[in-house]
């Protein structure tokens, strides 16, 4: 059945054609090899070899074929190389590409689910709301089945499609959307006046509808009389040779956002185009007609047929019936006649033959049957069109006077719909113009202009003049007023006013009446399979407002986003509800106006990974790394319990470079720290360190760390690993507008830090520094500055893990050098590096909390058992008000330590129970204690259970197990070791 030579079935070569007959492209369609010409799209290649059904519809699984051939409708969506919902009529053929159909099983030709088409009575609009309402379980059972049966392609969740796309930013004085005659005129005018222009079009070549127009156009300023496609070439040439215009072909402007930002998708590029002025010259698209079985493959839009003939050299069928409501049908009938198609009949719904039209006269002179006052009432055929039935119309309604014609192609034109979404997204108001029979933009924002057919006027000379004027006005608004620009704009305005008035007087539009029909389906919304009858019934059910009607029927909500159906949808609902079309209004325009792959919006994923300056050593030591915020840290180098032993018995070192480090200086630095921390800092003496806790003003814990006073007006602050950016902001926020003299600098990446801890830490570090580390000279919570292995360092004597130890901060450039020096110095004492896991166990034995790990959004210092750090004797600090209130009210629960009876370790979130009722929960940090050999951790318990030695019960894997509450650290509760 299939022809399989790309040259067969094609028309004589013509200048307007895009195909390259000297290049053969071979691809696969559903396993079949297909040969195409270079320049073909998937759809043109398939049509040329006789394939008419391209997809199955969303709900009823009806056959669908080419309709618009312009990437507007959803009829030709296919899966290409695993990417679903690619529009075959836009996608160029490539050698070796694999194309598959969607939403049909077992095959496109024999889709078993097409049985649904017979059961439409059981599947009215919103049947799932009505049928699966109760019991609730029913919907749970039904929804997976319905989801499988309906729908389009399937997404490959494993594909990293984000990486196929990248994001770009573009800036322009003037962005022109649409490179048809009006858009090109606008771009030329704006660039001529001196503006930087970006011109966007969704087709590969410029010129808009002129590209497939073979009529001769004369009387245009700047251009001699020539055929449309030649004019398109001329326009493209002039815009390409003009300075200051960037052209983006194959690019869809899918949304208008605040600040005149356009979202533009161009193949793999997601472009954010910020323009100071925007000219919308997006033109219009042709609409289908509503009649019985108006979706049978072989029913095509007139412009779609013109594209097949003039762009791809394809004879669209052998015999055609044309049904039109406007002049368009005659041009297409003539085009088809010249392409060798037999024109069986032309039906015009308007009451009188348009004698003024040259194409109409030519058709009559060549003996084509032209019927005025006739409408198409049904298409015949199942797999493809075999005939058409039309009826004479009287008083705007079809009579029973019917005529049947055999044909294999039905060309329809139901008028035009302005491609106006971007205008309405930008806040422009739509208004229905009765004289033009179209919705037109009113009240444009001052930085936006409209030109061409998007204004509802379909006249080449007017479009080009509108474009030129828009371009001049856009440029003038930016101060580009080259000599003569204002005069030219005034002249254009006068000419346009006259031309538009004369155009309006000549418009003849057919009253649009759509009957719901009996029996067979007449589709309004092809994407969602919504018929005229569905809409009429929904209006009768009370959904007489277009906004609610849209949501209820889902008409206009499919992949075409209402492009094929909005006008008919509004028309039918207005007619049924007894309103005027203008009164019915339109649905709200929102981005995106064309489907955009989520991968394009997401873009490539840039997850920053931070590595400390000692990272290379960790990897050499075979560390198992973990992510801590953006940082990668060693989790452990071997068994964590062994690392704990090393620290408790000998000496260990850990890379703590990831700690946030802030340098705070200035006369008012003590006042700032006194305000943000719960503790006193003005009284902290030089060379001393104090633990600091930060609360939000509602009393909840934000972060903790150490604060060291290096000099009178100079503090060194550490924060948790992931928190430093937030804390820097926090400090600056409480400085903003206060006039305080304090300066906060984030020095995190400039300094590396190593903690040396354990009974042999003093001996290890002592080998490398001249600083006196003896217990009396360098006491707990004191600091000193000096060289370590020749590297200038800040030494902080602190005890996070509960042993004698120093945190050494030093320039990050010396990271590996100092690490090596410490490892060498500690070798004789049995030094071992330790990772975050050992650190967590060790600090847990000391009951040191990690904010936002052990605490949550409702934890405050009082219920976290840290009252000692809150100084109510201070007049004010951030969180004081809330904490004072909390203290007055008393605590309801508390974070306490617990110890299990044996080595069993509960999970995060295991409930603390009283009888069968949960009264608390285990918090994130349970571990096995190396000191006790038992499971232990933190738990939230009711205040009445928060007593030393209290027995609580924890549900672990279905068993209720006893544990003992401990308010003291399980290791060295007196804090002797870390002070030694």
């Amino acid at each position: 059945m299939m022809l399989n030579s790309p040259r067969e079935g094609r028309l004589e070569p013509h200048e307007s054609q895009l195909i390259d007959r000297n290049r053969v492209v071979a691809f696969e369609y559903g396993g079949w090899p297909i040969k195409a010409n270079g320049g073909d799209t998937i759809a043109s290649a398939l049509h040329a070899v006789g394939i008419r059904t391209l997809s199955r519809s969303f709900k009823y699984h009806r056959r669908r074929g080419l309709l618009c051939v312009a990437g507007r409708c959803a009829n030709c969506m296919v899966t290409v190389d695993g990417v679903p919902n690619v529009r075959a009529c836009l996608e160029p053929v490539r050698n070796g590409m694999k194309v598959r159909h969607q939403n049909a099983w077992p095959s496109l030709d024999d889709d078993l689910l097409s049985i649904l088409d017979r059961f439409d009575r059981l599947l009215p609009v919103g049947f799932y709301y009505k049928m699966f309402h109760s019991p609730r379980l029913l919907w749970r059972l039904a929804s997976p089945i319905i989801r499988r049966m309906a729908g389009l392609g399937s997404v490959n969740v494993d594909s990293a499609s984000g990486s196929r796309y990248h994001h770009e930013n573009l800036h322009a004085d003037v962005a022109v959307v649409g490179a048809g005659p009006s858009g090109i005129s606008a771009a030329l005018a704006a660039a001529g006046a001196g503006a930087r222009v970006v011109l966007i079009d969704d087709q590969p070549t410029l010129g808009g509808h002129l590209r497939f127009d073979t009529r001769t156009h004369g009387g245009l300023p700047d251009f001699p009389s020539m055929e449309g496609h030649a004019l398109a070439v001329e326009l493209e040439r002039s815009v390409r040779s003009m300075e200051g215009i960037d052209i983006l072909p194959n690019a869809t402007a899918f949304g208008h956002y605040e600040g005149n930002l356009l979202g533009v998708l161009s193949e793999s590029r997601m472009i954010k185009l910020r323009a100071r002025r925007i000219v919308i010259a997006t033109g219009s698209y042709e609409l289908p007609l509503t009649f019985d079985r108006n979706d049978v493959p072989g029913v095509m839009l007139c412009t779609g047929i013109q594209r097949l003939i003039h762009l791809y050299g394809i004879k669209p069928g052998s015999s055609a019936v044309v049904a039109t409501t406007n002049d368009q049908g005659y041009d297409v009938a003539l085009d088809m006649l010249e392409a060798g198609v037999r024109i069986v009949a032309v039906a015009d719904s308007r009451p009188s033959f348009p004698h003024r039209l040259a194409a109409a006269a030519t058709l009559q002179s060549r003996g084509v049957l032209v019927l005025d006052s006739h409408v198409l009432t049904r298409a015949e055929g199942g797999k493809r069109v075999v005939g058409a039935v039309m009826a004479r119309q009287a008083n705007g309604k079809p009579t029973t006077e019917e005529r049947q014609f055999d044909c294999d192609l039905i060309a329809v034109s139901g008028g035009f719909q302005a491609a106006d979404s971007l205008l309405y997204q930008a806040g422009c108001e739509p208004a229905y113009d009765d004289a033009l029979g179209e919705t037109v933009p009113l009240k444009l924002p001052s930085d936006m202009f409209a030109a061409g057919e998007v204004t509802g006027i379909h006249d080449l000379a007017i479009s080009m003049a509108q474009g030129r004027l828009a371009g001049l006005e856009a440029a003038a608004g930016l101060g580009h007023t080259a000599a003569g620009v204002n005069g030219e704009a005034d002249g254009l305005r006068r000419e346009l006013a006259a031309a538009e008035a004369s155009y309006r007087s000549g418009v003849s539009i057919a009253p649009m009446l759509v009957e719901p029909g009996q029996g067979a389906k007449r589709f309004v919304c092809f994407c969602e399979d919504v018929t005229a009858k569905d809409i009429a019934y929904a209006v009768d059910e009370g959904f007489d407002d277009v906004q609610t009607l849209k949501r209820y029927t889902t008409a206009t909500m499919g992949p075409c986003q209402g492009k094929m159906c909005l006008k008919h949808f509004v028309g039918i609902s207005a007619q049924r509800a007894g309103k005027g079309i203008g009164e019915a209004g339109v649905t709200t325009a929102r981005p995106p106006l064309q489907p955009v792959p989520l991968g394009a919006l997401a873009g490539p994923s840039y997850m920053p990974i931070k590595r400390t300056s000692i990272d290379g050593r960790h990897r050499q030591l075979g560390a198992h790394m973990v992510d801590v915020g953006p940082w990668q840290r060693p989790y452990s180098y071997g068994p964590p319990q062994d690392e704990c032993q090393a620290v408790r018995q000998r000496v260990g070192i850990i890379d703590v470079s990831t700690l946030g480090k802030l340098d705070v200086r200035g006369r008012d630095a003590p006042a700032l720290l006194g305000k943000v921390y719960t503790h006193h800092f003005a009284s902290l003496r030089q060379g001393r360190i104090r633990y600091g806790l930060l609360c939000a003003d509602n009393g909840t814990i934000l972060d903790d760390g150490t604060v060291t006073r290096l000099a009178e007006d100079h503090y060194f602050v550490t924060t948790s690993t992931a928190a430093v950016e937030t804390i820097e902001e926090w400090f600056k926020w409480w400085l903003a507008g206060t006039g305080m003299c304090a300066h906060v600098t984030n020095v995190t990446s400039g300094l590396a830090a190593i903690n040396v801890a354990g009974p042999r830490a003093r001996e290890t570090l002592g080998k490398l520094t001249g600083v006196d580390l003896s217990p009396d000279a360098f006491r707990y919570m004191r600091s000193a500055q000096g060289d370590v292995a020749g590297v200038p360092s800040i030494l902080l004597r602190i005890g996070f893990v509960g042993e004698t130890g120093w945190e050494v901060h030093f320039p990050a450039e010396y990271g590996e050098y100092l690490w090596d020096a410490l490892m060498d110095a500690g070798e004789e004492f049995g030094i071992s590096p330790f990772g975050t896991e050992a650190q967590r166990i060790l600090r847990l034995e000391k009951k040191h909390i990690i904010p936002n790990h052990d605490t949550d959004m409702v934890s405050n210092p009082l219920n976290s058992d840290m009252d000692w750090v809150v100084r109510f004797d201070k007049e004010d600090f951030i969180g004081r008000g809330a904490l004072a209130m909390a203290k007055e009210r008393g605590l309801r629960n508390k974070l306490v330590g617990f110890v299990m009876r044996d080595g069993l370790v509960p999970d995060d979130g295991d409930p603390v129970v009283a009888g069968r009722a949960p009264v608390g929960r285990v918090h994130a940090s349970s571990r096995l204690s190396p000191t006790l050999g038992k499971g232990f951790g933190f738990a939230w318990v009711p205040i009445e259970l928060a007593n030393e030695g209290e027995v609580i019960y924890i549900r672990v894997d279905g068993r209720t197990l006893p544990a003992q509450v401990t308010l003291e650290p399980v290791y060295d509760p007196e804090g002797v070791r870390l002070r030694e």
Partner: protein
Amino acid sequence: MAFLIDCPNCGNRDVYEFRFGGEVTARPAPDASDREWTRYFYLRRNVAGEQHEWWYHTFGCRKWFVAVRDTVTNQVHETAWPKETH
């Protein structure tokens, strides 16, 4: 969200360079009543219209400033360094 904010230090920049800091509120005096504190902690005006709010230029000068933004249109009418607010 795609609007621009005129940072008093760096000029007109994309909103994604900034962090939103919420409505400008007045912090009660330390001895204020519980009612006043509670209102300050938890209640916001949440106007549909012009709002004074905090913004921080995270990917720029890393400074806080106050913007006057229309919450309906996302038009930023004015930006300035903060006056004595807390």
